């Protein structure tokens, strides 16, 4: 069976885990460290790409260049988000001058390694981090691995998810699924507790990372994980604790924060972070560090008490209350209906954050999950399942944000309400308003507010090819499809004539498909490979996966099929084996499909056998509204 990775692509740190012998394990670097800083260094004299992780930090201290950190904040977001960070004073990067469609892309200015500069997107930075994790896993496993489940904040919108998926593709990964971070954490936690015989109930996952906050209400019961509601803030995290402290460090060294150079800001942030971490189990600390000012290296000390720290971060921590409230209301629950509150994310180590969770939910939070590793572990478990592993696990997730279309007067017409189970679809029918009209424009938005300008613009698209009829006679049914990754696709059909009309989607933020293709072509890994050849290889991998699953099913549950059925399955499997040796992709495709069909009944019987009893116990309490 092909292995698949579980990757937690975090704001400050990223991790990779994989299932080995049925157990998920975080893969460590040569120093035994699982966390890889989500940092990329572009050196002035680095012609060959960039340095990632701890190396990136080390390189920044030694040589000239640009160190990019916490760029997850800018995935799938507009230029004004990045500008706002610069305006606030945290000048860790330089923006590339805006192009024609200024707001659509955040681009950083980085050295091109030949004495000049070039533009670089957050997607490219994320791809470097993902590639480093892929390399780590391949070195550890001694084989090539390209399948992966990548986690995203549950509250990520379509553009942010799309950007993450694009980063995976650029890193040479085949993204099996984008999985919500709190859902991944719940899977790891729930399966752990299940092994102890306590895997049932309704839980809140409180996930405060470096840059994002998620809160999800989930039910779990013997391998079934069901998200009831999710909420969050994709611009709230431990990073927000650091900047006010870093400002003090800069002032102490005589540097005005709003004019600090990127490397000074990085140095100050590092001292701030160490101070915050030291105050986790102490009441007062003096943290020493250095700041480079001109040719000088100035020693600075940040002295702080926990009370002072808490006074500084309290307003940030209190911003968690709104999302927590919304998640509970949407789930139709109150804190006393919960069986537990699970803390996830490095920032939940901060005592004030724990105190907040304790007070808000009226109970002692559970801290027995490893806050840094639990998300990657959950992702690896899901990856293993998707790669054909046998695990009684089913995740039913929801879309975090409502999806709508702009109508007259800039008002949002909501098509899919938030917290709807995904995948799902929504269809709206539109009629033409002018005679001979052959095109229509649409604006898709995501968010909870009534007015379009307060929601996130996802895309504008134009329908073309509407048959020219009288006004109101052509009726176009537009279908929105949200897949299991929470990603949106749009299709349209004219109902009177049955014509499929073309949909040209222009994303409001992030890369267009053409830009991603161009980046793929430009990267050396892909340039030489013929597309058709790649598709054939992918098909073969898929075929082998199906064959392995079939063998396993027959071996374990051979008694569930009769002699005839078994013969049919074996014939179909032999046909697939023969086809994998050829180069005829369509033939291989239909052989795999025939094998799928032949094993469908067996798969169904196996599933009924294993999970039948779980459902008999299942009872969902009626929730009073």
């Amino acid at each position, binding site marked *: 069976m092909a292995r698949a990775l579980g990757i937690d692509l975090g704001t400050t740190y990223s991790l990779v885990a994989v299932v080995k012998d049925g157990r998920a394990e975080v893969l460590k670097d040569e120093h035994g460290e699982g966390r890889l800083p989500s940092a990329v260094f572009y050196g002035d004299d680095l012609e060959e790409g960039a340095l990632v992780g701890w190396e990136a930090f080390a390189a920044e201290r030694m040589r000239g260049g640009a160190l990019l950190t916490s760029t997850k904040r800018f995935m799938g977001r507009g230029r004004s988000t990045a500008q706002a960070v610069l305006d606030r004073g945290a000048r860790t990067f330089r923006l590339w001058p805006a192009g024609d469609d200024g707001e659509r892309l955040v681009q950083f200015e980085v050295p091109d390694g030949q004495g000049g500069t070039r533009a670089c997107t957050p997607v490219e930075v994320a791809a470097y981090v993902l590639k480093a994790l892929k390399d780590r896993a391949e070195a550890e496993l001694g084989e090539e691995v390209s399948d992966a489940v990548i986690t995203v904040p549950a509250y990520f919108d379509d553009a942010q998810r799309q950007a993450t998926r694009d980063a995976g593709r650029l890193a040479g990964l085949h993204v*099996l699924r984008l999985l919500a971070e709190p859902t991944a954490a719940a899977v790891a936690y729930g399966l752990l507790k299940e092994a102890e015989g306590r895997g049932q109930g309704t839980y809140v996952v409180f996930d405060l990372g470096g840059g994002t906050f998620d809160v999800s209400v989930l039910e779990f019961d013997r391998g079934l994980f069901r998200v009831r509601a999710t909420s969050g803030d994709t611009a709230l995290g431990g990073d927000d604790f650091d900047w006010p402290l870093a400002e003090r460090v800069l002032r102490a060294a005589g540097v005005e924060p709003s004019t600090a150079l990127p490397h000074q800001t990085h140095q100050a942030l590092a001292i701030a972070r160490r101070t915050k971490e030291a105050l986790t189990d102490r009441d007062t600390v003096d943290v020493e560090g250095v700041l480079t000012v001109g040719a000088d290296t100035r020693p600075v000390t940040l002295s702080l008490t926990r009370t002072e720290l808490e006074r500084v971060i309290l307003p940030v921590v209190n911003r968690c209350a709104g999302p927590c409230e919304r998640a509970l209301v949407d789930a139709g629950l109150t804190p006393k209906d919960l069986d537990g509150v699970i803390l996830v994310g490095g920032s939940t180590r901060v005592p004030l954050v724990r105190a907040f969770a304790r007070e808000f939910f009226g109970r002692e939070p559970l801290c027995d999950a490893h806050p840094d590793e639990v998300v990657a572990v959950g992702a690896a478990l899901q990856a293993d399942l998707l790669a054909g592993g046998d695990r009684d696990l089913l995740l039913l997730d929801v879309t975090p944000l409502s999806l709508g279309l702009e109508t007259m007067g800039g008002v949002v017409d909501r098509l899919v309400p938030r917290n709807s189970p995904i995948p*799902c679809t929504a269809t709206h029918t539109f009629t033409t308003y002018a005679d001979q009209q052959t095109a229509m424009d649409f604006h898709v938005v995501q968010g909870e507010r009534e007015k379009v300008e307060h929601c996130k613009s996802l895309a504008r698209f134009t329908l073309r090819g509407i048959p020219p009829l009288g006004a109101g006679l052509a009726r176009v049914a537009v279908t929105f499809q949200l897949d299991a990754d929470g990603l949106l696709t749009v299709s349209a059909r004219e109902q009177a004539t049955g014509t499929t009309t073309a949909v040209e989607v222009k994303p409001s933020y992030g890369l267009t498909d053409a830009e991603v293709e161009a980046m793929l072509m430009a990267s050396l890994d892909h340039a030489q490979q013929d597309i058709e050849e790649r598709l054939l290889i992918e098909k073969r991998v*898929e075929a082998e996966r199906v064959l392995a699953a079939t063998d396993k099913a027959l071996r374990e549950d051979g008694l569930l099929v009769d002699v005839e059925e078994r013969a049919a399955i074996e014939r179909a499997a032999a046909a697939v084996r023969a086809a994998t040796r050829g180069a005829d992709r369509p033939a291989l495709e239909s052989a795999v499909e025939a094998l*799928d069909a032949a094993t469908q009944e067996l798969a169904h019987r196996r*599933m009924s056998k294993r999970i039948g009893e779980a459902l008999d116990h299942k009872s969902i309490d*009626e929730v009073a509204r």
Partner: protein
Amino acid sequence: MSATLPLRCRVCDAETDGSAAPIACPSCGALLPVHARVSPFALLGVARPRFALGRDELERAWLTRSRRVHPDRFAAKSEAERRCAAEQVAALNDAKRALFEPYDRALWLVQQASVTPPQLAQQALVELMEQRERAEEDAAARASIVDDARARFRARLEELGRTLAPLDEADDGYTAPSPPLRRAAALLAELKTLARLVDDLGGGKLIGTLDAR
């Protein structure tokens, strides 16, 4: 309702009736697509459209079927098979969204029978607008106005159940416009207006999909 909806299996080419929302082809076992006109009731295992349904019953049907068709179960299968699984589970989730709340379910039944919801009576509209104004001017009266609107919402919902009960029992209760369905449409208009009033006054959403229409 009883019209057959022909579906063709992409693997063995056998034709099946899709009206009962079958999951797999009966002759070869391949996963089937979902017919575009299949009823959400069929997807949730309810033989005939009806208004009176328990939440538990719908929830259980949704979970059972989700377990069978979820795309995660087919991740190692062929692309066509994965597409069918995605289509199956999307249709299932859409059916749940359409039927889970009594208000939405009644709306589906009314629209299905081509009954257009009438406008709210002029008098009722004026009364609602007055209440809204009163609540906006007088914060003390607000809570009682919200409570009152909620109570009326519950009463109208119960009346909706009584109105539709005879149709649930008839074989073809929801196939054509009828006086009970017109009455139901009027009740739905009032329910929506009450829900809007409560929501605007900060009393929360009585109808989950209030904005989706």
